[in-house]
């Protein structure tokens, strides 16, 4: 009998399960970082984590709060420059999986992390692209992690920050992007994957106690549901304990007061 878990915990566990041993993973901060490190602590001990700060093959004891925490450098196989990590490692085609998140996603997995409203007169100015446009283009696969709401899963993006399957139907394959694009979207309800023919995202798996109807209602376009929808097993005790230990270690480490030699 499992202890209860939060939606974030379920999402993190679901994302971690998608990663395999020796997978080379370009990781961002937050849930993807937690998922990738959880995978490393469980079934993927030799997973290779690369953060865009230039830390290659890092094995942090605690989760970084910033993309460039000292912990990432201390535990890395190599620390390289920012130009190198984007040129030799990402654009050079060394990345198997790149994680992406965004404020808006459309049915073809195109993402907006730049602006809500008009770019010149924004209603809400978002942080912007960072590494996303090139991660979306060059990683062999991208995994998207987002909470599913009608405001985030929209029929039309306000701005396209990084390209998924464009308008679908094989358009991306004819573009100059080398990567295969978004292969899965991990939400707080379940998993979406592109339909092999149309490349439109559809529900392929749901968490325990979540109905396909909930997923459809949480989506701003008429979300398609795959012929067969898998039931995603809840977090195991081991998954949950490992994740909570990781978060506890992280909170303890980052709670320490900072001493500066001045």
């Amino acid at each position, binding site marked *: 009998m499992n202890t209860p878990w939060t939606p974030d915990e379920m999402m993190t566990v679901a994302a971690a399960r998608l990663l395999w041993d020796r997978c080379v993973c370009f990781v961002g901060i937050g849930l993807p970082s937690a998922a990738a490190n959880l995978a490393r602590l469980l079934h993927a001990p030799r997973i290779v984590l690369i953060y865009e700060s230039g830390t290659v093959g890092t094995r942090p004891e605690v989760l970084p709060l910033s993309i460039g925490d000292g912990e990432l450098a201390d535990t890395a196989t190599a620390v390289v*420059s920012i130009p190198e990590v984007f040129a030799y490692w990402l654009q050079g085609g060394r990345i198997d999986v790149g994680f992406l998140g965004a404020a808006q996603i459309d049915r073809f997995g195109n993402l907006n992390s730049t602006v809500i409203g008009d770019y010149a007169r924004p209603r809400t*100015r978002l942080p912007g692209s960072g590494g996303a446009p090139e991660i979306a283009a060059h990683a062999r696969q991208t995994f998207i992690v987002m909470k599913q709401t009608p405001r985030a899963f929209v029929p039309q993006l306000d701005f396209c920050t990084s390209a998924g399957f464009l308008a679908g139907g094989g358009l991306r394959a004819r573009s*100059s992007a080398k990567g295969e694009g978004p292969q899965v979207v991990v939400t707080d309800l379940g998993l979406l994957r592109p339909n092999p023919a149309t490349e439109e995202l559809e529900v392929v798996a749901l968490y325990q106690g979540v109905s396909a109807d909930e997923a459809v209602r949480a989506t701003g376009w008429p979300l398609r549901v795959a012929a067969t929808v898998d039931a995603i097993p809840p977090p195991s005790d081991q998954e949950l304990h490992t994740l909570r230990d990781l978060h506890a270690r992280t909170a303890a480490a980052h709670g320490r007061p900072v001493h*500066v030699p001045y």
Partner: protein
Amino acid sequence: MALMTLADAVATFVRDGQTIAMEGFTHLIPFAAAHEIIRQGRTDLHLVRMTPDLIYDQMIGAGCARALTFSWGGNPGVGSLHRLRDAVERGWPRPLEIVEHSHAGMAAAYVAGASGLPFGLLRGYIDTDLGRVNPQVKAVTCPYTGESLATVPALRPDVTIIHAQQADGAGNVLLRGIAGVQKEAAMAARALIVTVEEVVGRLDAPLNAVVLPGWLISAIACVPGGAYPSYAQGYYARDNAFYLVWDDVSREREPFGRWMKAHVLGTPDHAAFLRSVGVISTRDASGVSA
């Protein structure tokens, strides 16, 4: 290079209206130098930085900037940069022209600047709106394959300012840990100011360490804690609590103004700033791990 106070370095090399790059990718962010620029009331600056972070949120809110070239403008691990948003969304304290890139594009632009090339080349901005809203992003055709590749104009800041761990007597500077885009920003600039944690007799630099020779550097200022609230590998850790608190401090204009007046404008130098925000001092650097 000349060893001088940070106040003198800024007074000597930083002018209103210039293009200024202050780099450091979450590590070694030159906060002390930014505060000194704010104290000296520099304005009309074109600020360049991949991740504006709190350092440019403060400078933008203080009215130093007319333009910003950047690639990711958030509070890392926290959320929005409220002063940046206020400037972009509502033009306060003044309208801010933005030139927006991806990380890869901006890195390529710095590399081109450091290399004496007029532009950088990348497989970038593919099928995105970024290339549409940034007229600087153009394309060239490969003379071998015929494919189209993105180009970005070289970044050549008037002044680049970075923070590092050590300088020696000859002004050679050692940078340890995450090196970000600092070497490229440093070598692309017309003038280079470096703040360091300490000046030592001999750099603690193994073969293949990241070292900038003193003759590249316009001015060096010794400013212990100069990267706080970011961190300096081997000297002190990132103050994550400060980044969280900043979300509240910076959310509204008045509290932000009071905070800047009390802690930046109201302090003579970085040591006074650190004391004013209650940073715990230790004279024993060796006891501290970053």
